[in-house]
């Protein structure tokens, strides 16, 4: 057995899986509260990635950074999370809010429209070509040359460590927020039963705005993480990532936060092992097979509870 290949793909899968997990968390939170499949979520991720790219350009471009790497990273995360969060809140306010009691198909089609609009507006303004974070050449490639060795001669760069550790920190913060704070409690109540929550005096509108802000901020951060680890950003990157992340949320159990993380890791690992051992063209087929299998065997997801349909 080729251990080098195995460990390489394992590391790549965990890195990519953490990015998916972050996007999936936002999907899952919004779905849990509104029962809305927010197709535009992947495009918020794209906007986050472009905000990070914009900051790199502002500070002299990848080859000639005029700023400390750590400071740049912090700036990128803060602005991508704020920008993504605000975009999410705006989408909710202007596209979805009036449709809360509409037939179920209406918000779904609106979400498709928002996604399509964001992608094409981004292409119009930013151009259709691929841009690169090029984190290999930041300050002589510190991010990738430094790092540590795993067994079987696999080198792990700091960039990958930052991605995985950053994702874990964000997930812990989110869990603490949802479990420990008053607003988190309101979010859980709203997700459990929106009408009952409203009757108990919870400001449901505010809870939904907070949910959109948090979920979209995570997607914005995921965009920057993806840029650091995989370099490329382009206007249509959100579509496939969003689709895979939603599948991750479904596989883990939608509406269940640890489930989304687990689902993200499963999809990330499946994708990277499919690339390593078969061919990158099989990625989608394998992920599709996983989705169908989970939906047939356990429709509520790996960690989800079976939903009882109320009549």
């Amino acid at each position, binding site marked *: 057995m080729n251990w080098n290949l195995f460990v390489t793909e394992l590391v790549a899968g965990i890195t990519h899986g953490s990015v998916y997990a972050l996007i999936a968390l936002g999907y899952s939170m919004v779905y849990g509260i509104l029962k809305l*499949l927010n197709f535009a979520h992947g495009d918020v991720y794209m906007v986050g990635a472009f905000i990070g790219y914009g900051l790199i350009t502002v500070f002299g471009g990848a080859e000639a950074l005029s700023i400390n790497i750590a400071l740049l990273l912090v700036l990128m995360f803060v602005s991508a999370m704020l920008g993504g969060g605000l975009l999410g809140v705006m989408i909710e306010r*202007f596209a979805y809010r009036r449709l809360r009691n509409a037939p179920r198909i209406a918000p779904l089609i609106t979400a498709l429209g928002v*996604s399509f609009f964001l992608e094409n507006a981004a292409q119009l303004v930013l151009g259709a070509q691929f841009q690169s974070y090029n984190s290999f050449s930041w300050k002589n490639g510190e991010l990738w040359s430094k790092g540590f060795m795993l067994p079987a001669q696999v080198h792990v760069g700091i960039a990958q460590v930052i991605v995985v550790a950053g994702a874990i920190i964000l997930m812990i913060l989110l869990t603490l927020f949802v479990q420990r704070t008053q607003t988190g409690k309101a979010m859980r109540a709203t997700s459990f039963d929106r009408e009952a929550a409203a009757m108990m005096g919870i400001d449901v509108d505010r809870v939904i705005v907070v949910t959109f802000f948090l979920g979209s901020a995570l997607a914005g951060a995921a965009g920057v993480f993806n840029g650091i680890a995989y370099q490329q950003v382009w206007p249509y990157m959100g579509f496939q990532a969003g689709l895979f992340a939603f599948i991750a949320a479904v596989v883990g159990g939608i509406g269940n936060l640890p489930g989304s993380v687990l689902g993200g890791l499963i999809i990330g690992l499946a994708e990277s092992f499919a690339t390593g051992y078969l061919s990158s063209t099989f990625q989608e087929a394998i992920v599709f097979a996983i989705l169908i299998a989970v939906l047939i065997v356990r429709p509520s997801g790996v960690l989800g509870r079976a939903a009882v349909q109320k009549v």
Partner: protein
Amino acid sequence: MDGGREINPVPARPDEAQVPKVGVDSWVASHEGRVRMNRFQRELARVPRPAFYAAFAVGAALVPALTNDAYVVRVGFDTLLYMLLALGLNIVVGYAGLLDLGYVAFYGFGAYSYAMLASPKFGLHWDTLAVIPVVVVATALLGFLVALPSRRLVGDYLAIVTLFFGQLFVTVYQNGNRISFLGITRGYDVTGGPNGIPDVDNWNLGGLKIGSVEGYYYAALVVFVLVLACVYLVDTSRTGRAWKSLREDPLAAEMMGMPVNWLKLVAFGFGAAIAGLTGTLFAALNTAVFSADFDVPTLIIVYSILILGGAGSLGGVILGALVVNVSLEVLRTPGHATWIFYIILLATLLVKLRPWRVLVAVLGGTIAFGFAAHTIFASAWPRSVHGASNIGGWLGRGFDSWSLHPSNGHTIGNVAFILLILAVLGLTLLSGWWRWIAMIPTLYLAAFVWDNSLVVEPSITRLILIGVILIVLMNARPQGLLGTSRVEIV
């Protein structure tokens, strides 16, 4: 079963006419009674629906006779294809209420199947009369196959599975030039990969060859009329009513003993078969198929046609396809696009701005604002009036002294586009007089963006416009232009 015992027939309810229709809120069901129609509308409502479809077919049949322009006929052909696609999607989404986001994959499957059976690719040159049944049945079976694992899924899960199926289709056909069996055999070229399948045969109906664009136009029209008749009959049939009850309330439908799963499968298969049939026309006229033609943008266009016309309405499908496709084609020419933009803007203002004093104030304000801005910018920064608008004549000259056309308008226009979106969003938050005052610079900004940026990039502008149509329509009039509004009972 009941031993031949006589059962008295259920007597008719005395208030039969007032009882709400199945699955419709009583307020919505009595909508017709509350609408006051003038005499013309009453007469129009009495004409049976098929008469309208026949009138449309006759009108459409005259189009090639009235014009010598092959381009117009080509646009007409594309519009007919979109109508056919929307008809099929209407069955799945409009009647059965299943959100099928992998619909264009069936279209692509039909096109590729035709190309494989009638091209030098495998040396097959089947008669079209033999290809069509094969393609239709195969596509319907594929539709069944996709619906099988998804039949237990509710709304959103179905959407995601079908969307992913559509993506998978594109990937498989794009990489289908080296398909090997589990990596054991050597790779076979099945779909031509990114190069697609070239040199597809023309339609050959038992010796009758169709070679011209006009020929295909008529072929598409005949296919459309046949499919429309078919869908109309199904619509009014037992199955059609069952689909609608499934859409209104799947649980209640199941309780009433309807074979819900079977109905879903049939809806999927029927819709897919229509898409496959349309694919054969597409492949034959274009003489080549590429997997990129069957990706998400096509799906969104078909959806916006269906949504714009009104899901569940056959006339809506025709109207939606005419509006979306014809207007998109007109947008390709910058001169026409400028006209359309200002006419739409003016019409919207005329309809939306009441009372007329506000309308006059806003319009006059916008014109005055434009001239003032033009004078200020022209003296302060001459490069801002360098370019010219896309419309000529005396109106164009007057227009040139109103609107700004900087020499590097493209870049500035893109930035202004973002500003415009923010301004429009901000506008919805203001109220009262502030709103009218803020509207003046926003209108001017919109004109500026359109003239300098959007009109010169027609391909992206079209897609952005479609996205906006979907969002605005869903918020303002979810039932579409010709659809009937309904209330979901919770």
